[in-house]
């Protein structure tokens, strides 16, 4: 019997131009890599400065985030390598599809309620067929966002590797 299984890896980035190596463990019964899915969650956006004037009791929150990516959609570059014959089999530019919208501020989206395919809740995987005859998949992620803005940006890159696995009946 054949089933599909996804292994999710979270890559935390906190330094400007950071290069982070990681490994994705391949299940023993995996036959093929059938898809790759990437996503990003920028944490620096939520780092708002709160100004409290002396003559007021209520804090004023600025509408623009201090560490806003500012129109840079490509946050980094991701590459995956098998230890066996496929070698370097995947490379992509990781994008923040919602960089124009500040979803960290709940007041900005009162008329845009969350649904299945909005707010990055659901995404489609990129289909591919690669032999999964390897113990681990080595990966490297290189930051572009922090390098472009010339400051440390804190965010997480999500990588989901989909496998076709063989299970016993």
């Amino acid at each position: 019997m054949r089933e599909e299984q996804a292994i999710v890896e979270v890559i935390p980035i906190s330094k400007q131009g950071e290069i982070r190596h990681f490994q994705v463990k391949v299940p023993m019964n995996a036959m093929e890599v059938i898809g790759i899915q990437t996503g990003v969650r920028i944490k620096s956006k939520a780092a708002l400065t709160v100004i409290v004037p002396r003559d007021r009791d209520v804090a004023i929150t600025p509408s623009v985030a201090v560490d806003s990516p500012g129109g840079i959609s490509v946050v980094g570059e991701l590459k995956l390598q098998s230890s066996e014959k496929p070698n370097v089999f995947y490379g992509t530019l990781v994008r923040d599809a919602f960089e124009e919208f500040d979803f960290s501020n709940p007041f900005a989206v009162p008329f845009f309620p969350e649904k299945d395919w909005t707010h990055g809740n659901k995404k489609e995987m990129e289909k591919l067929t690669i032999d999964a005859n390897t113990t681990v998949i080595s990966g490297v992620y290189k930051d572009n966002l922090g390098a472009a803005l010339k400051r440390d940006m804190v965010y997480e890159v999500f990588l989901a590797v989909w496998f076709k696995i063989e299970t016993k009946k």
Partner: protein
Amino acid sequence: MTIDSAIEILRGRMDDLGYRKNYYPHIKHFVLQPGELREVNAFNQLWILVDESSDFSISGEMGVYDLTLKNVNELKYEFQGLIRIKNYASGITHLRFVAGIPKHKKQKQNERK
């Protein structure tokens, strides 16, 4: 790393990648001028770094070797694709690799005969 251990690693890696003995092991010894940036096309090849020093930086398809970097969680000794070598030193720097260059199909067939 010694040249012997680099050759041993190269042998294992080329075997994993499916080349078995169908590759030429080459020792590459670069002489880099002060501040020189050299680019090497090593597509379809595998290079193992032998020398270790903070005088140079090497970047390849799957990582970098640069002892001066603080934003990397791992350094690589194995390079492929477009390899960029930068000499940071104010003098000439010597740098050695062991490279595995796959043979063409014709050469493989001739060996079988």
